[in-house]
């Protein structure tokens, strides 16, 4: 960890302005940023603490949706009665991640911006384009078992590690932001996250100083909400693959985690599902959603695993719908 200066912002606008200068980072729960600073992976010269901003409420929106302040903790969001009732996939995804202690500190905004879990990213001696642009990608010919299979580039094959974001994607949530000049934006998750292409160090379309103020969930869509996370141990591990699904009769919405640089959802694939014959639906969805996948030898198992996991989720949805 390098020396840095620290300021605490009183308003979102002041926070955005304070963070515009190069080398500045927001800090919320600190559960990801501080780890990375200790390991010298992130080297901000200045931190703007946003953790006390008044962005910690969950409020109903006029159209029946829900607005979640950027500083609502993962624990509070997962336990919110309306989230549990109307957006259960989100509760299920959040509690599948990290640990109770970490979720108590982790915030909605910070969770969206947590960084890659590629082991080479975590060691400053090793080549990694995401951490140190232009040094190469050691994972391409090294350890890649846990990394992404689609949406990747020759510069980086890291997956986005968030569970929460996968559920937000399936719910069509949007991210609200505030820029230093006072303008607010609303972005879908596909607009918010960039794919790596040849600039894997740029992970979002946020501009310097742009603050996440919250996340908005559209009105509830009903259906059976499921989140299934497959991992190497029963808890406290990132997803090898995960499936967030809302199943409503012949219609499904499905987003995938652990397999792409952002939560992966292909709306066409959901149409393919609806149009396919009953016993070929899951395959139709996977075939379309992972068309063009480029797994490595080590993580090629993820594509069949996704297929199997989706089938398990659909079987479970059938059982829950009956019960």
């Amino acid at each position, binding site marked *: *960890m*390098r*020396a840095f200066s620290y300021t605490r912002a009183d308003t979102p606008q002041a926070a955005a302005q304070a963070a515009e200068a190069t080398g500045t980072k927001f800090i919320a729960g600190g559960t990801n940023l501080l780890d990375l600073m*200790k*390991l*010298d992976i992130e080297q901000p010269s200045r931190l703007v603490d946003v953790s006390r901003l008044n962005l910690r409420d969950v409020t109903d929106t006029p159209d029946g949706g829900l607005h979640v302040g950027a500083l609502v903790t993962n624990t509070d969001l997962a336990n919110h009665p309306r989230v549990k009732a109307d957006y259960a996939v989100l509760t299920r995804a959040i509690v599948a991640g990290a640990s109770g202690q970490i979720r108590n500190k982790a915030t909605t905004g910070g969770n969206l911006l947590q960084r890659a*879990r590629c*082991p*080479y990213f*975590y*060691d400053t*001696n*090793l080549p990694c384009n995401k951490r140190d642009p232009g040094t190469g990608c*050691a994972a391409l*010919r*090294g*350890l890649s*078992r*846990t990394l992404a299979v689609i949406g990747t580039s020759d510069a980086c094959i890291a997956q986005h590690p968030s569970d929460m974001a996968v559920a937000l994607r399936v719910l069509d949530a949007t991210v609200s932001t505030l820029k230093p000049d006072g303008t607010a934006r609303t972005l879908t998750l596909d607009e918010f996250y960039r794919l790596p292409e040849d600039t894997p160090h740029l992970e979002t379309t946020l501009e310097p100083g742009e603050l996440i103020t919250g996340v908005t969930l559209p009105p509830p869509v009903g259906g059976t909400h499921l989140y299934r996370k*497959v*991992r*190497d*141990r*029963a*808890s*406290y*591990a990132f997803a*090898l693959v995960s499936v967030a699904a809302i199943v409503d009769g012949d219609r499904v919405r499905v987003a995938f985690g652990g397999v792409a640089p952002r939560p992966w959802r292909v709306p066409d694939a959901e149409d393919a599902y609806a149009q396919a014959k009953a016993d070929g639906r899951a395959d139709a969805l996977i075939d379309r959603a992972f068309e063009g996948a480029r797994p490595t030898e080590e993580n090629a*198992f993820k594509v*069949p*695993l996704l297929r*199997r*996991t989706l*089938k*398990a989720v659909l*079987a479970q949805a059938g059982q829950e719908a009956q019960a």
Partner: protein
Amino acid sequence: MKFEQASPPNPIDQERVVTRPFTRIEGPLKVSGQAPYAYEYGLPEAPTYGFVLGAGIAHGRVTRIDTTQAEAAPGVLLVLTHENMPAQARSDTPVPQQREASPQLSGPEIRHYHQAVAFVVAETFEQARAAANLIEVEYEVTPGQFTLADTVDSGKEPKDAVDSVVGDFESAFADAAATVDLTFTTPDQSQAPMEPHATIAQWDGDQLTVHTAHQVVHWVRRGLALTLNVPQKDVRVVAAFIGGGFGTKLLFFSDAVLSAAAARLLGRPVKTTLHRPLIFNNTSHRAATIQRVRLGADPDGTLHAVGHDTWTGNLPGGDSEPACEQTKYLYGGEHRQIRTRQSELDLPPGASMRAPGEAVGMLALEGAMDELAEKLGLDPVELRLRNDVQFDPEKGPKRPFSSRRLAAALRTGAKAFGWDDRPRAPRERQDGEWYVGYGVASAFRTNLVMPSGATVRLNPGGTLTVETQMTDIGTGSYTVLAQVAAEMLGLDLNQVEVKLGDSDFPQASGSGGSWGANSSSAGVYAACDELRRDLAQKAGYQSANAVFRGGKVWQGAECTELSELAGKGGVEATARMTYGDLTEQFMQAGFGAHFVEVGVNAHTGEVRVRRALSVVAAGRILNPVTARSQCLGGMTMGIGSALMEALHVDHDLGLFVNHDLGEYHVPVHADIPDLDVLFLDELDDQSSPLRAKGVGELGISGVGAAVANAVYNASGVRVRDFPITLDKILAGWDD
């Protein structure tokens, strides 16, 4: 005192305190944060903080190192590199790897990744770490060998694991009615103790005191003294509480040597802990193995040919991962061929970890037994029973086992576990999404004894103090030694105080290889025996007739209070237990059986252990609470090594890439279901006056194989390339 004949009846046989289920006497100190671990000792003056910078390459040399910026950084007091490190010598301890591992910053050569290249000392930990990041190092990289599989042809017969060949294995194997010929691989693994390696070093003139996390006090004392070129008598080592070692703290590393060297240069105490990401490559690990097991049997399962070959690697001068060891002793069979080949690798040092040898060797042998049973259509429990043998199968009946209750363990476990109710074929039983399977394996671990000494002092007032260099690495030494002393002197447990882990006390066995409880107890026994004699004499009794009970010494109806005998100055005795050749005359080992039920998810191939039982026969169980904890820990580690533990080698860059606890997976609570342990009654007269044997590592030796066998029984997939991760199950289902 020398233990050279079967133990005659002795006061321990009363089992008034020993064998009783006392919880740890130091437990309250630990849960209230008052038990100081190496890094936590208060010091008379403000300490300084050291930070080790690890090499960024695996093999080559430092061509330039620039510390200018680091030296100018806030709070920095000293930066050591190979250019200014004081001269050192090589140490020697019973761990051969220590020779090369001891001298730190002794030259520009880099032998493995994260080897120390610089050491920064500053007023705070944060300052030291920040300054370390400012050091510029340039390297010349030379090609290294990081891939065990590429070296199998160059492996040599290691000195510590020579070939052992009896009869004519090849012909017997060729002629056998039923055979298996299977190759297993086990990955590099990290001991990953909760407490990182840590040291506080402090000089007072020529006297060095080190608080350090180490399993054997006199090894680190000797090793450090030799490395630093100071007389051993000038070095005091304190290791009173240790947060797990699992073998890696049988060696000492950069934290100890560099803190001591820097503290001398600075004239101030230096405290250093290795930060977690450094531990995996800077310190030791268990080396990967490739193992080929060949078994040849009659149709009824009687083994005639037993073959086990292991390929493993290490840095030059290191010893081998003795994965063949159990195969020498576990089952009969007159034609045997056991061979290890060791090659040179440029990975970090391989060394002891949690049941060196057996933990990974049993994965292979007991997996092969399961496959042989299947081939023969035999119950795997029955196959093992048919090959039980009461003597060392290499040496014949002239070398019997001192005690061996393998058959009883298998039978007891089968009954208690409900083995008869097992699924007879893979994918036969399903519970919701989960295929359910049962697996069994034998448990085996060679019993080791080490010389050990102690001082016992009867204090004024009649309480007793025990002092020994013995360590407690979380196993329960404090409690067990207090029980032994209380038993010997006829006291209650709370009348005994135990002081451990200080080189000022008599030299002891230390902790490792499951020898600790039995060996250190024998040392305390010897000292108590001497004290009893002195006290009986003081009371004017015949020591042979004296009975110690209720704080008094009795002869017939006469008695004298111990407090009276203690007088104003107390009475003290020091003794040491050594051993004759009983371990030569008798093969000594702990035995047991593991039974495991797993679920394999029919969709995803995820494996979850549903329940497990270990039946353990390890001589007298000195304390069933601490022994049970040892077994539960061993079982947990066995489950981990079967299902998840693996250091992943980058074969180009030459390092273990997943060097943190986020990516080096050990089981979490959710992975571990109901575990149960049953101890069989056993007294081993040949092992020590305690009639006890090692326990902890029996818990791990075999349990992973039982998991793997259960995975097969559930899923129909044999995974011989450990750990058994879900991708390997899916590959076996092949859809």
